[in-house]
């Protein structure tokens, strides 16, 4: 079953074309992936850049397109893991960073989604969208962004 879903994902990624080539290199199947709207022209982000975007300090993709950041609830295990493992920050630090941006006029809050299914829908349909998903939630409409 697990192998089957992995094969499906691989097939989907092949269908999605070279955009998701970075994801095929990902070795750890349980890792939470950085995902974006398929129209985004940036396929690779440095970890520091990713962190600055999720902290809402950087508002555009490196090519100039506006970023729309999507996140799950602070206590959601996937959010917690993404923050700690991929961004190397604690969820409480991200929340404080957002509050400071929002209430000092230096930035905006990220968009909240209820669960990964909603995350997938919003990422697939919002130009410039950036978020994160577990591998099993990927589909052909989602671009995986590789992180250096």
């Amino acid at each position, binding site marked *: 079953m697990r192998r089957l879903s992995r094969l499906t994902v691989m097939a989907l990624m092949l269908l999605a074309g070279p955009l998701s080539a970075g994801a095929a290199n990902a070795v750890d199947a349980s890792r939470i992936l950085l995902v974006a709207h398929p129209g985004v022209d940036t396929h690779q*982000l*440095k970890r*520091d*850049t990713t*962190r*600055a975007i999720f902290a809402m*300090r*950087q*508002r*555009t993709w*490196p090519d*100039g*397109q*506006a970023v729309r950041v999507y996140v799950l609830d*602070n*206590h959601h295990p996937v959010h917690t893991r993404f923050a*700690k493992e991929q*961004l*190397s*920050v*604690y969820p*409480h*630090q991200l929340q*404080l960073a957002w*509050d*400071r941006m*929002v*209430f*000092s*006029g*230096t*930035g*905006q*809050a990220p968009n909240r989604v209820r669960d990964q299914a909603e995350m997938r829908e919003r990422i697939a349909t919002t*130009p410039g969208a950036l978020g994160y998903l577990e591998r099993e939630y990927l589909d052909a409409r989602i671009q995986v962004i590789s992180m250096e």
Partner: protein
Amino acid sequence: MLVSKSFRWSDLRSTSAMVGLLALSVVPHARSDQGVLDTLQVHGFLSQALIITDDNNFFGPSSEDDGSLKFTEIGANASLRPHENVLLAAQVLSRRAGGDGKEASPTLDYGLLDYQMLSDQQRTFGVQLGRVKNPFGFYNQTRDVAFTRPSILLPQSIYFDRTRSLALAGDGITLYHEERLDTGALRLQAGVGQARVEDDVERTLGLERFPGSLEAESSAIGQIRYEHDGGRIVTALSAASVNADYDSPNGSPGNGTFQFQPWVLSFQYNEELWSLTAEYAIRQLKLEDFTALSDTDKDGESWYVQYTRRFHHDWQWLVRYDSLVNDRDDRSGEAFAASTGGAVPAHSQFADDITLGLQWTPHPRLMLAGEYHYVDGTAWLPSQDNPDPAATERRWSMLLFQFSVRF
């Protein structure tokens, strides 16, 4: 009085200008691109505190039987991205901290246009125009928002109320830069403009009994901040130079100048369940050329060390030691007391505060907090709540409870 009136008018003007600016930028785009309105965000907050002291008054008649409820903070803001590189944001704040309620009239807290002209993988660079919150120490920019504070009161040695208008925001231009290094991120911010000099400053300087007024001159502020390893270690150095001229309609106290140069060194270490924070500040204050007042040149010193611990997901406790002296050359305040002939007690020149606090956030939009302060000294005790310094007690304690909501 004249001063507060003119400031209110200018606030009103800038508020309407900001609203007009927001409206202008929305209308043409709203027709062509629905996406712009999708970026509109509106947020707000409300906090109400109950303050009980055994002696001395803090933010209202806190030493009377029922304590004081005169600590209320209400704010609302809107932000919009009319273009991918541009952010427009404004916030209106109504804050009461003791007093007769006049000061609680809503003011424009910030109103700015932020143009992030460069953002790539390596750096971001941008400029902000308008009324910008001062990046001073860790907490100044959002000092009135309970959800961004570790405790009900920020460490009063640095974030005291007596000259808060100076610290709040400046009207001018700010540049910011973030550079990503191998080990962390370096962030710089520098601004020039006009500081807000309001009634609180004159009151603190003892100028409110004269008919003249302080007029803000150009001021500058800068902060350099380094965040190591995703913010596990954060250090910052902030500096400002605030200048004002005193315009005296008659010979007393005469025209004079006011200069305030604070420096703050900040340090924070973050773990998942705890944070250790410390800040150290030196405040250089100069009053010169007044005929009726002798020249003053004082270096005040402040520092605190604070430990916060998170537990059970939505709880946090805090312990803090916070210390302030008004004049490093007169730590005990004895020389100052002697210079007033004993009219003002020595303990008005320092304050050491031990704080224990607890926060509970049962829902992301709701926070309940309580804290206890044991204070030796009255240096940051608001003078409007304690008009007679000789009537204050040196050692006093304070209990606070606060209810906060936001959207």
